[in-house]
Structures are given as structure tokens and as C-alpha cells.
């Protein structure tokens, strides 16, 4: 895929490329800088939620963690990106208002989700938690969002849940972030309302073949987060 545009948003990097087919909010792509014949190392592609999509251009927002993301951060011309994968958020248009909760890079799928909710006329509020102000910079892309930082350097001092003044008033909660945060959201929301969580597991294939990306489910056993998820109904998860 030709990279059309590259932008730094605080601690994150945004890559845009041309993509016209449909993308569901919460779906992800497997991406990497280059594969065969260039290299077999790093070997696997990395999963990234779609950050945004406007019928012509898709974008990925990412944080540099290890080698795979460092190379993506250096990429100038082209990257290898799959088609949209996985099951995204299932939106019940009749349920509102909705709360969108993002923890750290978990902010990624909330932009495209917010766009979809706007299109469907579902009113919603966005709450974002970050480590510090550097990462919180991306909140500017979410007008009206409430922000919390762990070090108190921007917004409220605390986690994303601390930024939600009145969780009870929402009929649907959509969250993405590190698994411990998602577990906290699940506990806080209870089973009153729709609660959908986009989980983060290591992925091998992204298409259901390797069984590497599983999450434990309530009924026992494991399901693959790349095909059954990455967005799960909170009640389905064992944690």
C-alpha cells in the first residue's frame, strides 16, 4: 500500500493510505513494512485497528512499542497492509447515549466508531485515558472528549474511568485499551447495558488459522479474537 500521508500526533504516528472498500468500526488490519523477498525478519505482521476511514482513505494510528512498530514508524513509501479483518462493534441504533472509552493507543478505533455513530445519529461521549500529556495530544482529534492522564499532566488525574462522571447514564459502552483496563470497564459497567470491548492479543495470522490470539470465554475454553473478535460483548469474556 502506498503511504499517502504520515503525521505525528504527540507520541503516536498516523499513516494514511488509499482504501475504498467498506471498513466496520473496530475491524483491524495486519500491517508490516516489508515481507518476502525483502526479509523474513521481523516475521509476522502486526494488528492495528482502523483509526479512521472516509470512503477514500483509511488510516492507522500507532504507538512505537517494539521493532515492528519502529519499522512502521520509519516507513516512508509503502507498507504491507491486509484487507479489513475481524468483527467490529455491533451498533444498536436504538440505544443511546453511548460512552466511548479509550485507554492509551486504545483510542485508535474510537475515531471511526464515533464517525459511524454520528452517521447513525446515535449521540455519544468520548472519554480518553493516557499515560501523559504527550500521548493525550491525540485527544484534539476528538472534539468534546474528556481526558484523563495517569500523571495528571493533562485533563483529569487518573484513569479513563475516572474521567466518566456518570457511567450510569449511558445505554451502551464501547471500549478499547489494555486488557486490564477492559476488565475494569466490564466490572464498572456491570450487565445493565450493552458493553463491547475491543481486546488486544498477540496475533499470528489475523485470519483464524493459527489459534494464537485467543481470549478465555465465560462458557469455558478460548475463542479466537481475530475472527470472533477483536470486539466482544463484555459478558462473553471470562475476565
Amino acid at each position: 500500500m502506498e503511504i499517502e500521508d504520515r503525521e505525528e500526533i504527540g507520541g503516536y504516528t498516523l499513516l494514511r493510505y488509499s482504501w475504498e472498500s467498506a471498513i466496520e468500526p473496530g475491524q483491524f488490519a495486519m500491517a508490516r513494512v516489508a515481507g518476502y523477498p525483502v526479509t523474513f525478519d521481523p516475521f509476522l505482521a502486526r494488528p492495528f485497528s482502523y483509526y479512521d476511514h472516509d470512503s477514500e482513505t483509511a488510516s492507522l494510528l500507532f504507538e512505537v512499542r517494539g521493532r515492528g512498530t519502529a519499522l512502521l514508524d520509519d516507513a516512508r513509501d509503502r507498507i504491507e497492509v491486509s484487507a479489513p479483518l475481524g468483527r467490529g462493534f455491533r451498533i444498536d441504533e436504538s440505544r443511546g447515549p453511548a460512552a466511548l472509552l479509550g485507554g492509551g493507543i486504545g483510542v485508535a478505533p474510537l475515531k471511526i466508531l464515533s464517525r459511524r455513530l454520528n452517521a447513525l445519529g446515535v449521540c455519544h461521549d468520548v472519554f480518553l485515558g493516557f499515560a501523559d500529556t504527550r500521548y493525550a495530544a491525540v485527544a484534539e482529534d476528538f472534539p468534546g472528549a474528556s481526558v484523563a492522564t495517569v500523571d495528571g499532566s493533562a485533563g483529569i488525574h487518573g484513569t479513563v474511568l475516572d474521567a466518566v462522571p456518570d457511567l450510569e447514564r449511558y445505554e451502551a459502552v464501547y471500549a478499547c485499551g489494555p486488557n486490564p483496563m477492559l476488565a475494569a470497564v466490564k466490572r464498572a459497567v456491570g450487565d445493565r447495558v450493552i458493553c463491547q470491548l475491543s481486546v488486544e492479543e498477540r496475533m499470528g495470522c489475523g485470519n483464524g488459522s493459527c489459534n494464537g490470539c485467543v481470549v478465555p470465554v465465560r462458557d469455558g475454553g478460548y475463542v479466537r479474537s481475530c475472527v470472533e473478535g477483536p470486539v466482544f460483548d463484555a459478558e462473553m469474556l471470562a475476565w
Partner: protein
Amino acid sequence: MKNDLQTLQLAIELCGIALETPLIPASGTMSKEALGEVAGVYGAILPKTTTPKERAGNPPPRIAETPAGMVNSIGLQNPGIEKFLEGLDDFDLGVPIFVSVAGDAVDEFVALCDCLAGDDRISAVELNLSCPNVEHGGLTFCAGPTSVEEVIGACRAAYPGKPLFAKLTNEGVVANAIAAEESGADALTVINTIPALTIDPESQSVLVRGGLSGPAIKPVALRAVYDVSRAVNIPVIASGGVSTGTDVAEFMLAGATVVQVGTISFVREPGEILREFSEYLDRMGTTASELTGAL
């Protein structure tokens, strides 16, 4: 997908089964969801190993990336033989279906063979001998020739009339291959993943203890295929690190009759590999069936 010339070029025979191409998926590396992408690419389909009862598999993390490879510890997650057979028609792409089975005792292997023996949809069975054997203190069925003979001998009786493949690990592969041939295997799949471990230096803990696969192990698998095909008279099915069209050629030159595509399918379209292999055959003016052992 293929024209007539390519059909002639790629066709191969394995234990009397006509395959349109010499590529098959390695067990455990291709789900039903991914079948759409491989129509016309694989000469046969080989789903993930099935055990007698459902297995939940291991808790995550199950995979870790390594230099030019990955380590996995899936723990044979599968729905059990009964549910597997109920869903078997989903794997029907118009090519032969091979079924991989594993148990943790000889009688489990036998019970699995019993379930499959009468099923017309199945063209051959692959015995995954890399699982821990509860009767031998947790060593795998590949631990030594005696253990290999025991399980294959029993399965041979329980699964008559159709080809039985034995999938061997790298450790002791030549001795096990000879034992497998003698006890009635019709073909040998060589090799499975190589025991390995990854550690996360930041959290200072074991990440995944499991099996190494991918390009990294190709030279080890190539050696095993080369040595085994010179030690036995039955066909060898290569598995281990196959990643490009010339890799397919290398494994066939080393002595393989067909070649399994495993981990690489997570990052490359198997169709690309077949295309590269076909280009190689064009360049060399040869066909797949002429290549085996043509070193």
C-alpha cells in the same frame, strides 16, 4: 487459476492419490475461514489435528515471534473428532481431504482411526506423533522407534485400505522413519515444529514454551527430508519452513513428494508460493513429478 500446461506441470501422485499440485497446508495452520484464498492452490486439504475429545488448548500467550520464525504453544485446541466430522464438509474444495489425528495413548489413536476408517470423504490419515504419550511418562510418540512402531502398527490395523501418514519430529527422525516404514506407514511427514522457548526480558518471565516453525527451521527440515528420503522407500511429505517457490523445489530436490505450507501462510498467500514454484519449473523446463529426489 491454472491452465492445461500448468496442470500437467504441477500434478503429482502421492500413495496412489492424484493431486493437482504438490502443495498441501500443514496441519494447524489453515482454518476454514482461510479456505477461500487457497482454492486451486492446494492439492489436498489437511485440517488441524483432531483428538478424541474436545481440547480447550493452552492459555495465552500462545505465540511469540522469533528471528525469521515463531514459537507456538496452541495445545491442540480442537472440537474433538465427533464435531470435527460433523463440520468436515466445510473443507470440501473438490480436492482430497487428509485428516490429522493425535491421542495421548495408543488406544486413542486406534479409536480415532476407527472413526475415520469408513468415511469416504477422507483420502488419508496423518498421525501426529509429536504429542506427549501418557503411557510413556509424557515422552512423545516420536521418542523412539519402539513407540513409533507400536502406534503405527495399531493404527495400520484400524485404518486398512487407505494411506496412513506418520508425522515425525526432527529429533531421531531417521531411526523413527525406518521404524514407521516397517510398521506400515505409507508416507512420512517430516518434520513438526522444533522444541523451543521464548523469554520476555522486560517482565523477566517465560513467554511461550512450544515449537519453533517458519523460515528459521528450513535448513533443519531440509536435512531431515534429505536423510529420511534416503533411508526409506515410501514417499516423504516435507514440512518445516517452506516459504517460497524455490523452497518447494529445494524440498522436492531433497526427496519430498509433496510439500506442506505452514507458518508462512500467516504472512504470504499460498498462491504466491505456487506461482513462484510454477515459474521455477518453467525456468528449469521440468515438472513437479520429475523433481523429487532429482539432485
